[in-house]
């Protein structure tokens, strides 16, 4: 039960008024910009719209996933690094370590709270995107969308654990923010992938080394129907999932060990 209270407290710790407002603004901005990037606003007349509905919908979702990774994952990393600084370096954290709360319990509660915040953030984006799809008549929420959002959420959690352990190790919040570069590099490499570059050495290296969800070498990239959306579908080959899980556990244990042995500066 103590863990649940610590998780609840962590949500309070993360959600200052500024962060709360900024989280909502980013979610709404991602949806708005993605819709603006599609041809939805420029499609002239119902007939034209009906004809290109599928393409507009795919453009919208493609942009949505792209901006979500670029902005929302980066935002999550920054917030996590800031909270980690509070947890590893702040005197206020020491208040919680009185009254019988052990350090491992406190740490697990903190991580649980962090994961709940990230889940809420992605859930808010999912709801906003789903509502946009339905209200604009672009389509419906389908299972693949749920699957992609789940993967992006897991990506955020893993990269946040990396940020968390880096702050724990160095006590420098700026270093905790550097995993954004990992995300952006991965995004750049995989967003520029084409049927020709898929499977080349760089792509394979990035996707094997970086423990994020990876693309599979899906054969449909060879076909004419390949589009941006497909990059996000079927992008979890077994090696990616395993690497991701191992890396997540490593970061979690490292962050926990650093928390338990943490000394005040």
């Amino acid at each position, binding site marked *: *039960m*103590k863990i*649940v*209270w*610590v998780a*609840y*407290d962590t949500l*309070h*710790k993360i*959600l*200052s*008024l500024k962060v*709360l407002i900024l989280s909502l603004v980013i979610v709404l901005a991602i949806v708005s910009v993605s819709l603006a990037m599609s041809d939805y606003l420029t499609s002239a007349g119902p007939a034209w719209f009906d004809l290109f509905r599928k393409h507009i919908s795919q453009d919208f979702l493609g942009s949505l996933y792209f901006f979500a990774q670029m902005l929302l994952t980066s935002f999550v990393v920054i917030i996590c690094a800031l909270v980690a600084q*509070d947890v590893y370096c*702040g*005197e*206020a954290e*020491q*208040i*919680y*370590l*009185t*009254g*019988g*709360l*052990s*350090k491992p319990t406190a740490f697990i509660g903190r991580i649980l709270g962090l994961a709940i915040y990230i889940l809420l953030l992605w859930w808010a984006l999912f709801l906003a995107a789903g509502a946009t799809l339905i209200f604009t008549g672009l389509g419906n929420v389908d299972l693949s969308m749920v699957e992609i959002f789940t993967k992006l959420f897991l990506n955020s959690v893993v990269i946040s654990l990396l940020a968390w352990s880096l702050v724990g190790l160095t006590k420098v919040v700026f270093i905790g923010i550097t995993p954004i570069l990992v995300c952006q590099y991965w995004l750049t490499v995989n967003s520029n992938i084409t049927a020709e570059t898929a499977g080349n050495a760089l792509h394979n290296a990035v996707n094997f080394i970086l423990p994020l969800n990876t693309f599979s070498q899906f054969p449909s990239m060879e076909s004419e129907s390949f589009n941006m959306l497909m990059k996000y579908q079927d992008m979890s080959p077994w090696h990616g999932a395993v690497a991701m899980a191992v890396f997540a556990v490593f970061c979690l244990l490292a962050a926990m060990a650093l928390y*338990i*042995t*943490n*000394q*005040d*500066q």
Partner: protein
Amino acid sequence: MCATNIVSFEGASKWYGKKPGVLDCNVGIPQGKITALIGKNGAGKTTAIKMIMGFLRPTSGQIIVAGKPRNLLTVNSSIGYLPESLRFPELYSVSQLFESLAGIRGLRYREVENFLEKAKDLFELQAHWKKTLRSCSKGTRQKVGIIQAFMHNPQLVVMDEPTTGLDPAVRYSFFQFLRQKQSQGVSIIISSHNLKEIENQADYYLFFHQNRILKAAHADELGGNYGVYILADQEIPSSLLPELAKLSATADDNRIVVTKRNLINDVLSILIQSGIEIKNILPEGSNLEDYFLNLVDERS
């Protein structure tokens, strides 16, 4: 070491790289007393407190708290703590924070409700109880910090500069509260660099200077007992003078001298009932300051 010590430093030193934090401490802190750690800024008080709490590991030696050696894994079950700088999540209301802290400490809210009600009245928090911490002043947040240190009924409470941001009247109530808790058997350790404020409030003093404990002394070793003077926001009306005189207090303009400290509450009641606002309460003269400066001179 004495068997009734709640905390014992056994040759404890702490180095931050090449910079000393605390050097070669060998001292015991008596159980069931109010102990004040006295010293200038950077003298080693906070380092000593962090080592007692187990947030810092001594570079050499060890710290024994309640008979058990401290390490980074020790769970602070029966210890309350107030750090020097406080930062609570800002969207909590004061009551929500206490509810959450009770849960974190494995207590049901109704177990601490009675204590919180009393503390709310004592620290004049009624008007702030439902407000968010974001909208509370620094002083109010400090009061919240003090209350949380006691809410789980600990046997040892450690506070670093606890009176920061408190107004004089609340500061007085705070020391009364400490005395009440001490009479219930709670051991209290507070640090301060404000010697006038801490004067006569503790039973035992540890004097820190240049990262060492110069001396540990019981209060009665410090010499005589001075009175206090109260600064009011206005000139004291002559109609109050006879009443004050009965309490061995004399008034001059807006300054009231109370020679017997045990009567200060009665004097304050008279003044407050007459609509006079208290600006400050200060000791008249200072044994502690003289004592500390003499110690430093001797060391020099």
